[in-house]
């Protein structure tokens, strides 16, 4: 594989949008292309993420329409990726694999989602479609339900009183909302406190409203290019140092939900390719779809031992200017929002900006190595991308 760079990266504001999926993707995509000092006609392929367009807008096969919105040449194929919440990360990884293999020199990857259009009831139904249909979603499991079951297992396995665990989980929400308050692109830009989290309505015991990320609308895109050409285009490309992706089956195959086996396999690939380990990470954008999910992720990465990450946020170890590693400076899925088909590209956008020193009040000082972590479905897909700014 030849070295691969990310040039421009961009995202729309996340939240509730009146724009169509295609309009949002065009905004993010054209901005990413412009930031790369390129034109749409320079794109050789589109790796397009969208999960639920058929339910949101009655639109299947959205990729060629996104291609037309961006004004890409007919010779550039547009392909849709769907890996539930990990969609855009998986699309970007495949873009990078083909650029690395020399098939393309410059491509665009990303995704768009308009989840709020569906309303909570249909959105909950469609998200549950990413659980195994015959045995699991038929039993009425929901995404909050999956992570709720993981929370009970975690409390039991590590012998932590549920009340204490929930207070520490609330600390994750407080931290990520605090970060989100500094992000003008975030769905929620308001700080919250522990009492707000612990006073929220119950969604799936023991997860309350503020343990959960919102349904959001938004789009994000990145330009992936041959690293040898990147310096000619922009002064500060960010390089892909390592990638990983792994898959696991339904919940009944996974058994102990506190161990995200797909993530453990994915991050091992990414560390190996990058030649780094958990202590080398300066900044992490990880998949905090629920507060417990951030805790599980930090343990899968080896940043913390198993059963040890639950109080990282309350101890101030993962906050901006905290004592260990900055986790979700963008606000994470929790505060920045989670338009599922776009999320991974937005995480990449945050890390690219962090590594360029462009993050303003939420800048992680001196960040050199950043990790993107996106989880799809009920722990069935995990994709990781490690980025570096090439500064030693």
């Amino acid at each position: 594989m030849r070295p691969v760079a990310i040039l421009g990266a961009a995202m729309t504001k996340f939240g509730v949008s009146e724009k169509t999926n295609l309009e949002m993707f065009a905004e993010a995509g054209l901005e990413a292309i412009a930031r790369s000092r390129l034109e749409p006609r320079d794109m050789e392929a589109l790796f397009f993420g969208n999960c639920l367009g058929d339910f949101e807008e009655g639109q299947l096969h959205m990729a060629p329409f996104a291609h037309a919105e961006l004004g890409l040449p007919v010779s550039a194929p547009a392909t849709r990726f769907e890996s539930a919440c990990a969609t855009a990360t998986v699309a970007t990884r495949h873009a990078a694999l083909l650029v690395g293999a020399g098939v393309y020199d410059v491509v665009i990857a990303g995704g768009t989602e308009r989840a709020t259009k569906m309303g909570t009831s249909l959105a909950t139904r469609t998200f549950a479609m990413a659980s195994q249909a015959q045995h699991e979603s038929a039993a009425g499991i929901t995404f909050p339900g999956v992570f709720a079951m993981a929370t009970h297992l975690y409390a039991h396995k590590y012998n932590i009183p549920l009340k204490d665990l929930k207070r520490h989980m609330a600390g994750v929400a407080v931290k990520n909302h605090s970060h989100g308050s500094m992000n003008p692109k975030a769905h929620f830009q308001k700080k919250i406190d522990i009492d707000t989290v612990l006073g929220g309505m119950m969604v799936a015991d023991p997860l309350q409203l503020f343990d959960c990320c919102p349904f959001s609308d938004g789009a994000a895109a990145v330009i992936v290019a041959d690293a040898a050409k990147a310096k000619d285009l922009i002064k500060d490309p960010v390089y892909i140092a390592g990638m990983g992706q792994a898959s696991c089956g339904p919940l009944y195959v996974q058994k102990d939900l506190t161990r995200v086996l797909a993530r453990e396999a994915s991050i091992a690939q990414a560390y190996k390719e990058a030649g780094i380990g958990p202590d080398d990470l300066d900044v992490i954008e990880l998949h905090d779809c629920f507060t417990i999910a951030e805790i599980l992720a930090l343990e899968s990465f080896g940043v913390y031992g198993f059963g040890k990450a639950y109080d990282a946020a309350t101890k101030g170890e993962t906050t901006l200017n905290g004592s260990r590693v900055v986790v979700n400076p963008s606000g994470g899925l929790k505060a920045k929002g989670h338009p599922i088909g776009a999320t991974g590209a937005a995480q990449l956008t945050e890390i690219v900006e962090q590594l360029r020193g462009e993050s303003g009040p939420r800048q992680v000082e001196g960040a050199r190595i950043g990790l993107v972590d996106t989880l799809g479905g009920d722990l069935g897909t995990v994709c990781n991308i490690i980025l570096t700014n090439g500064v030693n």
Partner: protein
Amino acid sequence: MEYKLTFNHYQQGLEQGKFLGLKCNACDSVIFPPAAVCRECGSTDLTPTELSGKGAIRTFTVIRVAPEGRKPPYIVAMAELDEGPWALGNLVDMAPEQADMGLLGKRVTLGSHVVKGDTYATDDTHVLTFTLKAP
């Protein structure tokens, strides 16, 4: 490669109160619900078998915000069956308000109930249930 025990056969078993799975002739592990391949060793040398229908709760949740077409609250749980596999289903003989961490480790008996199909999943489906009291 013929599928040894289809979902349809598994469903017919549930209808008759039987919990049909597969026994791997290569490594002796039990596969439930049925699959094409042994998850432990990859063998396709599998023989249909009937499970005891006993196990213990490993985790649970109470769904309070439900998908379209479902009436919350209800309990979803995972149990470890005596033969080794884990299964997901509905705990049906406890009021959701009573469910707490005390459930973890409790012995349960398997059963099934029918979940009506909806616009997207058109078949009615037998879904596993767990009961704390032996029938």
